[in-house]
């Protein structure tokens, strides 16, 4: 029977320290790398190299000609200068991106938490029923979900307009998509509807772990529901809330299809551009791939800041 010390040494989380002094066979030492290699190659080719390249493009006046010839056309930070001096960035794109993200994240997390609290107070049967309904909202693909909301708010035949006209609140159909405020209000509804189930399910899982004794003791001491939430539930679910907040922030900053598919969202209405859509329409609409890349780099940097917080938070909790 083969002695299996090398396998044991290689295969355990258990013996954390003291790798065997004895030389292990080459195949055992390289095995983790052989296993990792295919995935690493794919990640390097599809994520890391494009990440480098989008930055390289952003330093060039990269158009159709450069794409075809493959020749670089360096212009330094010209694209960035153009972005930062473009009044569109400060008056339209950034307010749309950041403002929307703040409203959508807060809306999603608050609403999701309230739903989780409601779910936690329900009996078994009703929790199952409401939970299943939430799954339906979660499972709706972003594209079809967006089309349904567009259809509901459609200017000519949409349900909202016909109902408002039916009860006499409006004389003429209103186009909800031309005004940036109502446009983004619809996007917010769409995003909250699609995003709150994740928050609700996650927070509910955390809520079930909160000590009942502590809650009851607090209630005996006269703490109201709001006080109990902020004094007991929120502190013990701090980690869960951090995750939920950060993931939602990342998702909502880079929201694309939900805006692009809306009437006017694909660049024809400049008032509703956000960073992602702006980058896309400049590159694929105007063939200004360098300029679009510079916008994409800014979006990535914005998300990187959020990611840095996320990773730091994780590292603080345990050592992986």
């Amino acid at each position, binding site marked *: 029977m083969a002695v*299996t010390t090398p*396998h*044991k040494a*290689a*295969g355990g*989380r258990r013996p954390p320290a003291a*790798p065997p002094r004895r030389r292990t066979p080459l195949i055992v030492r390289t*095995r*983790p*790398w052989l*296993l*990792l290699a295919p*995935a*690493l190659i794919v990640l390097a080719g599809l*994520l890391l190299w*494009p990440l480098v*390249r*989008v930055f390289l*493009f952003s330093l060039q006046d990269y158009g159709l000609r450069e*794409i075809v010839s493959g020749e670089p056309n360096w212009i330094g930070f010209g694209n960035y200068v153009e972005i930062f001096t473009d009044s569109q960035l400060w008056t339209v794109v950034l307010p749309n991106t950041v403002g929307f993200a703040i409203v959508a994240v807060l809306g999603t997390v608050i609403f999701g938490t309230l*739903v989780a609290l*409601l779910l936690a107070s329900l009996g078994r049967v*009703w929790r199952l*029923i*409401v939970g299943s*309904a*939430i799954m*339906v*909202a979660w499972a*709706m693909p972003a*594209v079809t979900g967006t*089309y*349904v*909301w567009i*259809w*509901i708010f*459609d200017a000519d*035949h949409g349900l909202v307009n016909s109902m408002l006209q039916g009860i006499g609140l409006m004389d003429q159909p209103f186009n909800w998509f031309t005004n940036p405020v109502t446009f983004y209000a619809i996007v917010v509804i769409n995003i909250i509807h699609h995003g709150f189930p994740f928050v609700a*399910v996650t927070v509910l899982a955390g809520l079930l772990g909160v000590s009942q004794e502590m809650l009851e003791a607090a209630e005996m001491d006269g703490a109201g529901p709001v006080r109990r939430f902020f004094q007991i539930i929120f502190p013990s679910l701090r980690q869960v809330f951090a995750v939920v907040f950060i*993931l939602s922030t*990342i998702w909502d900053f*880079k929201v*694309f299809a939900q805006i*692009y598919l809306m009437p006017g969202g694909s660049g024809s209405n400049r008032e509703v551009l956000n960073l992602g859509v702006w*980058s*896309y329409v400049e*590159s*694929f609409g105007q063939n200004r*791939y360098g300029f679009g890349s510079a916008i*994409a780099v800014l*979006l990535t940097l914005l*998300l*990187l800041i*959020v*990611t840095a917080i*996320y*990773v730091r938070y*994780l590292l603080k*909790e345990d050592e*992986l």
Partner: protein
Amino acid sequence: MRRQTLGRKITKAVLVTLLLIFTLFPAYWMVSSAFDARASSGGQSLLPREFSFVNFEFVFTEGNFLRFLGNSAVVAFFTVLISAVLALFASVAVARFRFRFRTGMLMMILAVQMVPLEALVIPLFVQVRDLQLLGTLTSLVIVYLAFSLPFGIWMLRGFVAAVPVELEEAAYLDGASWGRMFRSVLLPLVAPGLVATSIFSFITAWNEFIFAMTLLGGEDQNYTVAIGLKQFFGLHSNDWGAVMAASTVITIPVMIFFVLVQGKLSNGLVAGAVKG
């Protein structure tokens, strides 16, 4: 259980009703419009005015949706298959072996998950163009691997780590090689996790929009379902009945898979994120 006052119960019932309406209404409205032959001429009633399958017929005959469903299925199938194999190998490496840069690798996989793929459309488009793969389903499979692989590794890692090391050691004691142990011990025990991650990559590939739109361009015989929908939008009027019928058809497989995977999905997201 605390005793509930009547007022409390009523408040709760009202809240539950409102929540159910908000949650289910879009799905209901989608299905209801899909079955309404007169959906596109304006909807004041909440029920279909003329119940029929005419929208579905149109979607499958004129709309060519059978073809799009097939394309999406092919793309999703290969994405799932390749990413499952690669993610399984990689997760075994990071969960079961101690080696230099292991923590670094884990950090990289976690960080890479945060890269907004939307920001990589331009370089990936150029890359796919250089490979002369624009307009092909292959290009979509390649790109979708980037979507599903980091999450798959991260999620499977937890499943692999949950298999007791003692089982592996018992296999070695019985004389099994590493490969044999992998096949006969690890693989069957990780299978549920593999199914869960596979369904996740299926849903991602099935729903993806921006890359399908960019990489397929005008090759409409290769369209996937997510971009096949846009043909029902006319210059002046939209065929909402057809859009909703096609949306219903697209949503059904996702709903089914979602129900199968939802518990694991939320656990995976949180476990991967919270526990590391």
